[in-house]
């Protein structure tokens, strides 16, 4: 896992010179007859921030959820850290992984949801401690200390003993980020983390995410916050109708989109 506050490595040819942490190869996804992902190829290198944009229903959430196997894929392969997600390949055949193995793979991948999904019956600090204690078997005292540190890092040490219902949306989302970080993941997935928030609360969450990006965390972020993509994004990928229409350096894609669909979408969100 990359230690926080590690300087970002050198950038070569617009992309980082690090190993490929996420490799998505020819991924298709059907919901019944509904062909939602239609052959997605994408890589995210270690330390990169990959921003995904696209119109509603284009399959962004589905793709993100496939990366940690919350959805099963219908075709293709997804590798995280060179490990095939959800399956085991033996003798040219795919075998489903045992639930325990899938859980082990997920520990390495943090996820932040649009609707926060904090555990409602637990305080902020208990939310953050839950997985380290229950999944990693960490001691309670150590987990609590770490949880309070993480809450401090997202600017919420004063709210540690509040229940989610006693927190604003922006505060809840920052607790959710701390909760995901508590597992020391190598990769963080964000599914529209700010779109359920009142405008004045968006900034705090984005600031926490920017700090995280600068500390070297590998992130895949679905968002409509183009400013965020421009500021800390390494790649910007535009999806529509279940395919990647265009991908490149955020500033280039935003300033000079190559496809009509990208142009149309950007003109609507900018």
């Amino acid at each position, binding site marked *: 896992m990359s230690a926080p506050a590690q300087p970002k490595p050198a950038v070569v040819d617009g992309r980082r010179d690090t190993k490929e942490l996420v490799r998505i190869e020819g991924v298709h996804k059907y919901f019944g007859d509904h062909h939602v992902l239609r052959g997605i190829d994408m890589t995210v290198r270690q330390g990169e921030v990959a921003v995904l944009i696209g119109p509603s229903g284009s399959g962004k959430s589905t793709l993100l959820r496939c990366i*940690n196997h*919350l959805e099963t894929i219908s075709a293709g392969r997804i590798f995280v850290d060179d490990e095939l997600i959800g399956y085991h390949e033996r003798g040219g055949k795919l075998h489903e992984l045992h*639930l*325990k193995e899938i*859980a*082990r*793979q*997920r*520990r390495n*991948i*943090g*996820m932040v*949801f649009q*609707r926060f*999904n*904090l*555990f*409602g*019956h*637990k*305080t902020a600090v208990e939310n953050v401690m*839950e*997985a380290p204690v*229950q*999944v990693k078997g960490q001691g309670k005292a150590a987990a*609590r*200390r770490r949880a*309070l*540190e993480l*809450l*401090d890092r997202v*600017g919420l*040490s*004063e*709210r*540690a*003993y*509040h*229940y*989610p*219902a*006693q*927190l*604003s949306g*922006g*505060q809840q989302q920052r607790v*959710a980020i701390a*909760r*995901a970080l508590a*597992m020391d993941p190598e990769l963080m997935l964000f599914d529209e983390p700010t779109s359920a928030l009142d405008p*004045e*609360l968006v*900034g*705090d969450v984005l600031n926490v995410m920017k700090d995280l990006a600068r500390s070297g965390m590998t992130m895949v972020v679905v968002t409509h916050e183009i400013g965020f993509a421009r500021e800390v994004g390494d790649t910007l990928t535009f999806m529509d109708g279940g395919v990647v229409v265009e991908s490149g350096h955020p500033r280039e894609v935003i300033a000079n989109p190559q496809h009509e669909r990208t142009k149309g979408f950007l003109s609507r969100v900018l």
Partner: protein
Amino acid sequence: MVMTAHKAEAATAQGGAPELIKAVPVRHPGRWVGAAVILLLVALGIQSLATNPQFHWETVALYILDVNVVRGVGWTLLLTVLSMVLAIVLAVLLAVMRQSDNPIFRWSSWVWVWFFRGTPVYTQLLFWGLVTVLYPTMSLGIPFGPALVTWVLEDPTRGFIPAVLGLGLNESAYLAEIFRAGLKSVDKGQAEAAEALGMSRGKIMWRIILPQAMRVIVPPTGNETIGMLKTTSLVLAVPFTLDLTFVTNSLANRTYLPIPLLIVAATWYLVITSILMVGQHYIEKHYGKGIESGAPPVNPAAAKAAAAGTAPTGTAPTGVEPGEAIPGGPTVTGKDIEESGR
């Protein structure tokens, strides 16, 4: 923030404290009439209870703490508690099976509920009573192998196990539906967030879903427990003859004084129900954590230190500072907005 600014402005504009409203409240004569009628009826009732000799209060006093009656209370309580425990265990299982990916599990859970909810509990109790005639001894051991423990069930406690089975199995069908509704009431995002953290299925159920489902499950289950307390009076069908209703009935038959013994039984049922209601209140409070926002956040470390009369030293950044206003609810206070405005 905005609101405080307004208030401050208004106060300074008038150059002092605002004049508080002292309005004359609206009169409600109807309420007074209603209350008077009710009080009159209560007084009449008490007068009749006290003066009508048919109530035989001396007999009530004689039997309320009679050793057989108190034993009956004990058996009734034991029947209630054990059949509810059996029902709850089965109901959790049934509700989880109902959500399973395995169609056999789903189907058998459905059939169970269909059968036990669809037949009268009296019939079921009769049936379990007859089973003890078919199998007068019960043994625990290896299927088709040797028995390890054997009970010979003797009269009159011999009806106890069939009574618990009958009551518990019947109740499990009702509770299963309550638990199913409870599990469904928990947002799917909760399980998803826990899955994404790498928690196992069992832990997600026990630590995340069930505790939150309890908020929906506890009130109707409390209802069912009180219902069960009274349903135990049907165990004479088994027959089991040591429970409160049977004991007071037979005393009534012996003394030819049914009314005072009915009062004895009713008093005890009321007492137990009241105790159960108190218990339910505390269980509801426990599982309301985080939802009922009335309780202010408590920092356990600081609370412990305060109790010990020392200041917390060298602890990690803690929750609420002394003297800091505690937001009482989910509303966003001025302080929150101020904080997020940084």
